[in-house]
């Protein structure tokens, strides 16, 4: 029980404390490609601190609206405890990949709700885009995890990780990993898929009315989510080398996550924003392509 609690705490701590650092590194890389110096790596921490110290202004009323930012961050932290990070997920017994998919979708739904209840036309257009994005990205995410489940013969993430670590790369898992990566690009709100927030069109979309501590929690949740999903990607699809020493494995995963996120950021800086219909068409094709991974998995490749 103590180990379980400690494991949960570790995953939550990684998601909470390291996600601003990763964000800071990504910003540095963006700046380098822009020929800028860029803010210090610690800037996201200062951003959070500054926002948390500001006045709490609300454009909507009610308990639910008040609790939305905290709920969003909590849903991401719950996802962190269900995700393997260097070792098996601490709450693995509580749910398999189906639960992970649901929990991963929760934060998007909560952000959508906050946009719809904020009473701003930008918020409602942003929320409707968020919903359309979620509907087109989730299938790709689900199919790519299902490929892992089919290969390993289990719905448990731990089983999938072990199977992949022991059997090495395969055609089906490579295709599925690619689909998961593209879904990660969208789920972390990066270009060309930051369509719901679209600063230049919707001034932040669902989050347009959020400021101060509420905005800090939403931001934190989004950074944590991109980190946790990147961990999920490297654990399920790129678990090698797995030495069985938790500290080393965690360090290796952290480095791989950095590589994945830098790639995400690289795609972000060299692309313009797509329109929502173009993005939906894109993920329709990604979803279909990942079905071919299922076919490869069935024939054992």
């Amino acid at each position, binding site marked *: 029980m103590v180990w379980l609690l400690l494991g949960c705490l570790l995953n939550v701590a990684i998601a909470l404390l390291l996600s601003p650092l990763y964000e800071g590194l990504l910003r540095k890389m963006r700046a380098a490609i822009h020929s800028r110096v860029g803010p210090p790596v610690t800037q996201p921490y200062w951003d959070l601190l500054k926002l948390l110290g500001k006045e709490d202004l609300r454009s909507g009323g009610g308990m639910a609206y008040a609790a939305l930012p905290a709920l969003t961050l909590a849903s991401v932290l719950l996802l962190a405890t269900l995700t393997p990070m260097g070792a098996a997920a601490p709450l693995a017994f509580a749910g398999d990949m189906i639960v992970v998919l649901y929990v991963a979708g929760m934060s998007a739904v909560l952000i959508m709700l906050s946009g719809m209840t904020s009473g701003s036309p930008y918020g409602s257009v942003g929320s409707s885009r968020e919903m359309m994005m979620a509907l087109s990205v989730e299938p790709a995410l689900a199919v790519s995890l299902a490929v892992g489940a089919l290969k390993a013969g289990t719905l448990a993430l731990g089983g999938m990780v072990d199977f992949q670590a022991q059997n090495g790369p395969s055609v089906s898992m490579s295709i599925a990993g690619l689909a998961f990566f593209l879904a990660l690009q969208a789920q972390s709100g990066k270009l060309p898929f930051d369509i719901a927030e679209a600063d230049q*069109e919707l001034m932040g979309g669902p989050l347009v009315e959020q400021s101060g501590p509420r905005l800090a929690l939403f931001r934190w949740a989004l950074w944590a989510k991109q980190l946790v999903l990147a961990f999920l990607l490297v654990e399920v699809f790129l678990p090698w080398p797995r030495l069985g020493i938790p500290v080393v494995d965690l360090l290796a995963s952290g480095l791989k996550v950095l590589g994945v996120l830098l790639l995400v950021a690289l795609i972000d*800086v060299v692309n313009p924003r797509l329109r929502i219909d173009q993005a939906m068409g894109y993920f329709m094709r990604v979803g279909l392509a990942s079905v071919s991974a299922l076919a490869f998995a069935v024939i054992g490749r």
Partner: protein
Amino acid sequence: MSTEHERTLAAVHQVAAERSNGSLLCATQPHSDTLHFVVDRSAMRAVTGGLVDHLGARFLISVGTDRRPLSGDFGVLHIFSLDRDHLYVLVESPIPADDLRIDSITPVVPGAAWAEREFQDAVGVRAEGHPDPRRLLLPDDWPEGLYPLRRDFPYNFRPPADDAARPKLAGAPAGASVFPMGPFFPVLEEPSYWRLFVEGERIVGCDTRLFYNHRGIEKLGDSVLTYSAIPHLAERICGICGFIHSTCYCQAVEKAAGIEAPRRARYIRTIMLELERIHSHLLWLGIAGHILGFETVLMQTWRIREPVMWLCEAICGNRKTYGMNTVGGLRRDLPDSVRPELLRVLAEVEKEVVAVREAVAGDSALHARTQGVGTLSEETARSICVVGPPARASGVAIDARIDHPYAAYDEIRPRIVTEEAGDVWARVVVRLGELAESIRLVGEGLSSIPDGPVCAEIKDEIPPGKIGVSVVEAPRGEAIHFVLTGGDNRPYRWRVRAPTYPNLQALPAAIRDGNIADTPITLGSLDPCFSCTERVETIDRRTKAVRVFSRAELLKMCRARAKGGG
């Protein structure tokens, strides 16, 4: 050539005579490229319609003038251009002071819609039969019946403010909802309010309110300033096209007064105008990238642009707002010492522009966001009288540098860049083409620049009652200045039309049936104007010591602050 020119003149005279049906009051030719007709106001619509239908005349702008101190009446003047024939056609009607009405020409010349609303606001001559006679220029709380451009209206009069006043804007059609863009919005560099009517994300219509920053510049020009002070004000009309406006004004006065600027001054004007086009197009490309979320394009194009600004600073002491133009030529010569640096920087810029063009041309995601977006058909572009790159991207081959050669463009001839598609991508391609062309023109100008004085000596006073029309092809399209000289060392009437004026009128047509997501880039692709910043100069108020911070110092201060403050 000359017989063809005479034939055109005869054709214009014929249309004016026939369409005015006996009420042609006067026909003169103040300059070789300007025809001036005075017709009775009852014939205005018929004559202007005839010019457009029979001769393909393009509407430029209207000028409403309060002439009560001169002749006891008002005047409404519509300016047209016959681009192929290098000719301006001015059609004017006297309006009796006790009956301030004239038939609107908007039903036959759609491009005149704003111009007519403007003289309605400014001098109070009503355009009868205008499809949308709402207020255009004046603030919403401006009292009815006060006309700022009338001669008896003091330039510094301030009517009481009324914060409760709201613009009269159309409601959404049934089934559509309102999506407001502005008056302040991230991608709008200036306040403007676009009220989009949307079904889901599809735009079914829009209404707009602009002119939030109207500064009353024309009023200052004909009430407070003098001929030689106005270039400095004209330069401040726009933060980017400053030199264009001061050149355009000076040319108009020079033309009205019969002053010839020296050849060398004309060459230097050409070089400065093209340098402005280079840095403006680079700036625009960056903004377009930013609007699409493509910040790398913004950062890189602005990095490429920066040395051009330093060149301008080396030439005249300022990145922008050069203070070089004056009536009769220039206040400052182009120093020979900058020539090698100019050529070196331009070669560098050209190389980088080619790299940017290659990167942009092959970017499929960029194509997805710009091709088939914000399309203006050639027909619409012509009827709304769109100018500049948006016109050329829709296949309307107009360019003031070719149609009405000024400065040294009669000797350094630009090649016109046109596209057919009329979408945002076509506007990108046109501007990229013009960038290369401008770099070539600067080089050509530098190599063939003649020696000599840069300013004509003006011995006589500028005679009153003369007309001068001048156009300059700004990066955004053609700018027009009209001057009617006055007796007290200042114009009696100075009229300015910036290129964004006609282009913004085309936006409703360009975004219709499009998507909310496409609206910012469509608006951006028209390149609406905005200001940019200068370096900082501080003055110690006690010691009067002036300290100028260099770019490197400012950069260091910025970074030190970012490090210290977090």
